[in-house]
């Protein structure tokens, strides 16, 4: 063997040693991570890694500081090395002295955790100093520790975000519940109201109140959208309802001034304003008065022409003492006042241009003889169709007030009863009263279909929504010349369509037939959950030829 042969062999052995060391480190990291797989708790996981580290590195004590503090092994030894150590930029070795004066070998490794850097300290008693190969292993373990802690922080942040998201959703739902779910009824008028927020909740609102034979109404839009606007919206609804309930105002402008006075400080502080149209109609008359505080679109749609009702006051929150002008409108039977929001007219199409006032006007123009709900819903459908793939830019609101036609007088009636099976039997007499005295075969057939449909829905409410524990059910019906529409409102559990096994016709099954029967009996069945209330709407169209 010559000297010349030793060089390559030494190199080969070094390489082999390095490979073995690298393999050892891989194995160590594998063992550390495998220890993690058994553990679900973060605290426990760090402890487990440190214990494993003691074994793998032949240390007597391990200490992890920063983002918490964990230790494993010989506590007395660690006390000697703890504290006063600056985090080194790379792994390092040091020597210290233990409490008994004996030397302690120390290995330090920085652990990257997010923006901060934590420190892993290992200690060996006696003179067993840490070697370079040990430090490589320590560095690998530090990397695993850092990964674990980052992961935990990410997870915690995710949980927190989810929690905030749920709270946001709940708050939004509550805000939206501030809107009326039940439409008011007033003699000689038909009322339609709907608000579709762009998000879970929005800044649009409407509200009604009956007082001394008049119906007061307000439709408004808080600047902005989403939860911040909704928060202001609920405040605005409360202020408006408060004014309706407390005040006896000479006219619409006076009522609007009262709402402004109530909200002014709040709005001025928040740097927000509200556009609102407020007014009243008298029962049995064609007179309608409004005061428009910068709201749009407000449209009076008559037989031959439509007239935009221009603003007659500044928006709320602009001036402290609002002096608006009340406009008095005389409506002929069939004329209607439409109170929209800019989310309707300003909705853009995918190509850019907005839906606009002309389209809004045109949608309402042909609707004199149409069912009011159908007419209103159609405007929403048209705006949605127009928007196509373009994003929904703002909340959409539409309130329609139509003077009832003289010839085809409408009948309206409502009834509240307690949710039990005996009381459900009161539906028949109430329905007979709504449909009127007519004894034609057509009315008899209508009665039979509606009674069974209402009965089925109400029994479902008694047994499922209220689960037999009672509550209140309200029926409100409108008999128009071309249709009968009835709303059923309860405050029980929400209806879950998924939970109902739809029967296959002709195949016997016990239960689940109620809704199937209802769908066959009437022309339209709709369900909506708003706030804490369920609303079922059923409609039968009558073809009086």
């Amino acid at each position: 063997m010559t000297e010349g042969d030793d060089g390559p062999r030494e190199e080969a052995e070094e390489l082999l040693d390095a490979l073995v060391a690298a393999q050892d480190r891989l194995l160590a990291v594998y063992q550390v991570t495998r220890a993690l797989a058994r553990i679900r708790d973060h605290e426990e996981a760090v402890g487990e890694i440190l214990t494993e580290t003691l074994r793998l590195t032949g240390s007597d004590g391990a200490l992890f500081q920063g983002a918490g503090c964990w230790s494993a092994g010989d506590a007395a030894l660690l006390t000697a090395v703890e504290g006063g150590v600056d985090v080194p930029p790379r792994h390092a070795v040091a020597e210290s002295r233990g409490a008994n004066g004996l030397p302690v070998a120390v290995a330090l490794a920085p652990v990257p955790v997010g923006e901060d850097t934590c420190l892993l300290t290992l200690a060996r008693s006696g003179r067993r100093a840490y070697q370079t190969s040990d430090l490589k292993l320590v560095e690998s373990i530090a990397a695993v520790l850092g990964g674990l802690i980052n992961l935990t922080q990410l997870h915690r942040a995710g949980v927190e975000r989810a929690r905030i998201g749920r709270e946001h959703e709940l708050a939004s739902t509550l805000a939206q519940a501030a809107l009326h779910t039940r439409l008011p009824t007033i003699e000689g008028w038909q009322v339609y109201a709907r608000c579709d927020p762009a998000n879970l909740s929005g800044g649009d609102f409407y509200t009604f109140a009956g007082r001394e034979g008049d119906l007061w109404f307000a439709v408004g839009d808080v600047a902005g959208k989403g939860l911040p606007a909704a928060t202001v919206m609920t405040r605005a609804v409360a202020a408006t309802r408060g004014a309706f309930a407390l005040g006896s105002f000479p006219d619409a402008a006076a009522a609007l001034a009262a709402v402004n006075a109530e909200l002014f400080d709040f709005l001025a502080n928040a740097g927000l304003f509200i556009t609102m149209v407020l007014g009243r109609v008298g029962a049995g008359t064609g007179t309608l008065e409004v005061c428009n505080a910068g709201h749009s679109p407000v449209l009076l749609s008559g037989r031959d022409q439509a007239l935009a009702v221009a603003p007659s006051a500044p928006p709320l929150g602009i001036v402290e003492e609002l002096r608006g002008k009340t406009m008095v409108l005389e409506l002929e039977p069939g004329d209607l006042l439409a109170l929209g929001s800019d989310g309707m007219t300003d909705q853009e199409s995918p190509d850019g241009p907005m839906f606009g006032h002309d389209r809004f006007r045109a949608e309402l123009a042909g609707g004199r003889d149409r069912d009011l709900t159908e007419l209103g819903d159609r405007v929403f459908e048209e705006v949605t169709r127009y928007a196509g793939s373009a994003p929904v830019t703002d909340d959409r609101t539409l309130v329609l007030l139509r003077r009832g036609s003289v010839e085809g007088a409408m009948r309206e009636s409502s009834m509240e009863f307690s949710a039990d099976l005996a009381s459900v039997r009161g539906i028949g007499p109430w329905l007979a009263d709504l449909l009127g005295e007519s004894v034609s075969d057509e009315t008899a057939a209508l009665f039979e279909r509606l009674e069974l449909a209402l009965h089925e829905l109400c029994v479902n409410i008694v047994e499922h929504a209220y689960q037999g524990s009672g509550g209140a059910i309200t029926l409100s019906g409108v008999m128009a010349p071309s249709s009968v529409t009835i709303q059923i409102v309860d405050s029980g559990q929400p209806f879950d369509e998924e939970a109902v096994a739809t029967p296959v016709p002709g195949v016997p099954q016990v239960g689940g037939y109620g809704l199937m029967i209802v769908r066959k009996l009437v022309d339209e069945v709709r369900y909506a959950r708003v706030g804490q209330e369920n609303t079922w709407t059923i409609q039968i169209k009558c073809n009086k030829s």
Partner: protein
Amino acid sequence: MRIQVDVHGTTPLMILEGRFDAHVIADFRVNAEELISANHRTIEVDLSQVVFMDSSALAEILRLTRTIRDGGGDLVLRNPSHPVRVIFELTALDTAFTIVYTTGNRS
């Protein structure tokens, strides 16, 4: 709803009169189960005087039919009134039952 039970014939007959709905199902079931436990294999139910019937009553009739057929007998529905026929037709279950139309009194 009035429920009359006639056990004088070869098969017992329940005569229902009035509204047959969720409210009276419990009553109906008590009467029917009495007849089943008295070892009557087949039971007849007269529905000619039912003025209103709902899906809960329909489900109860279905349940009873199954119980009796499982015991080797049958539930025979006699002369269903218009409201009863309507609900049978809406659910397309008119073929699931044994329905007989008779005139006059039972022999």
